C-alpha cells in the first residue's frame, strides 16, 4: 500500500528554519513507521537524518512526533496512522538536524535527581540487601523507563520552561525514592521540591499517554508530590 510521509526537515548548514517535505513509499500495513523512514533514507533521500538503534522499542532512541503525538517510530504500525503520516521531532529540545534533537538538556535533568542507589551502610551480614516481593513491587513500574524523552517532550510545562525537571527525571527519582534499599530520598526530594521540580506538573496526563513503556507517569509524579508533602508535615 502507498503511504505519504510528510517529514519536518532542517539542515543547520543550509536552512534558517525547518520545512516539510513529502515522500511516497510502498509499505505493508503491518510495517512500522520506522520501516518507512528507513525506506526513504536507503532508497529515496540519503540526507534524511533520524536516530534509531535497536529498532525494537527497547533503546528509546527513535522518539518523535507521529501525527502530532509522541511515540517510538519502531513501535507504531503504519496501518494505525493512516495513509498520510506527519513526522516531526519531539518538542522542547533544540533540533540538531531533521528529526534529531539535542538530548543534553534532558539528560542533565535526569542526572540532577541522582539516578543511582545511594546507601553508605554496609550490607547486612556483608552480603546482599534483600527485598521482599512487596518492597520490590512498590517501584516496579518506574524501573521500565528507557529514557526516550517521549514523556518529557509531551509535557506543556516543559515546553514553557526548559528548566523544569520533567516527567522522565521524576519517574527515575521515583524508582529510587521508593526503593527500600536506598537512603538518598531526602536529597532527591529536595531537588524535586524546588521551583523547577514536581510542582510544575499540572496533572495533564500527556506523559502517561505518550510513554511507550506504558509507565503510569502521572501516578508516579503524584506519589512523589505526596512524599514531599507528607515528609514536610511530619
Amino acid at each position, binding site marked *: 500500500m502507498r503511504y505519504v510521509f510528510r517529514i519536518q526537515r*532542517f539542515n*543547520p*548548514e543550509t*536552512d534558517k*528554519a*525547518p520545512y516539510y517535505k513529502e515522500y511516497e513509499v510502498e509499505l505493508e500495513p503491518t510495517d512500522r513507521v520506522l520501516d518507512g523512514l528507513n525506506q526513504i533514507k536507503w532508497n529515496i533521500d540519503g540526507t534524511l537524518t533520524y536516530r534509531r538503534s535497536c529498532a525494537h522499542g527497547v533503546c528509546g532512541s527513535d522518539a518523535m*512526533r507521529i*501525527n*502530532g*503525538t509522541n511515540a517510538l517510530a519502531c513501535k507504531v504500525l503504519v496501518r494505525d496512522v493512516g495513509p498520510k503520516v506527519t513526522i516531526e521531532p519531539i*518538542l*522542547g529540545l*533544540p*533540533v*540538531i538536524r531533521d528529526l534529531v534533537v*539535542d*538530548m*543534553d538538556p534532558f539528560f542533565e535533568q535526569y542526572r540532577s535527581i541522582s539516578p543511582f542507589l545511594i546507601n553508605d551502610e554496609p550490607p547486612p551480614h556483608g552480603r546482599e540487601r534483600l527485598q521482599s516481593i512487596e518492597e520490590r513491587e512498590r517501584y516496579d513500574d518506574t524501573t521500565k523507563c528507557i529514557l526516550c524523552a517521549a514523556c518529557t517532550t*509531551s509535557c*506543556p510545562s516543559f*515546553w*514553557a520552561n526548559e528548566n523544569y525537571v520533567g516527567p522522565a527525571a521524576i519517574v527515575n527519582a521515583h524508582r529510587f525514592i521508593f526503593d527500600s534499599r536506598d537512603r538518598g530520598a531526602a536529597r532527591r526530594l529536595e531537588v524535586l521540591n524546588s521551583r523547577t521540580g514536581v510542582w510544575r506538573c*499540572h*496533572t*495533564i*496526563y*500527556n506523559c*502517561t*499517554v505518550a510513554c511507550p513503556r506504558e509507565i*503510569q507517569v*502521572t*501516578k*508516579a*509524579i*503524584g*506519589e512523589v*508530590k*505526596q512524599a514531599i508533602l507528607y515528609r514536610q508535615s511530619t
Partner: protein
Amino acid sequence: MTSSRTVYRRGRPILEGLRYRGREGMFAWLLHRATGVGIVLFLLVHIFDIFLIGFGPDVFNKLLFLYKAWWARILEVFLLFGVLFHALNGARIIVQDFWPRLWRYERQLIWAEMAIFIPIFLWGAYVFLQPLFR
C-alpha cells in the same frame, strides 16, 4: 554533543505545542488556563467598579447601567462558564493529586466533571439570558 553546535531552537515551543494531539487532559488544562486569565481580567474590572463606590452611591449607581446592557448579560454567561469550569476542573485536579491511584480513571473523571458542568452552565445561562427574550 556540545551546546556550541548549530541547532534550531524554536522561539515558543508552547505555541507549537498547541498542535500537539493531547487527549481530554490537555484540553482541560488549556481551558483551565484560558478561563483563569478570563477570571483575572474580570476581577480587574470588578475591582474598578467597586472602587467607584468611594466616590459616592450616585457614581456607582450610574455605572450599573453597564450590567443591565444586553451585551453585559452575554459576558456574564462567559463569566459563568469561566468560573464554573475553573472551579470544577480545579477540584478534579486536587482529587487526582491527592489520590494518584485514580490515574486510571482520568478520562472518566473529566467526563464526570462535564456531567456536572453542562447542566449547571445551561441552567445558569438560561437564567442570565431569559430577560433578553421577554
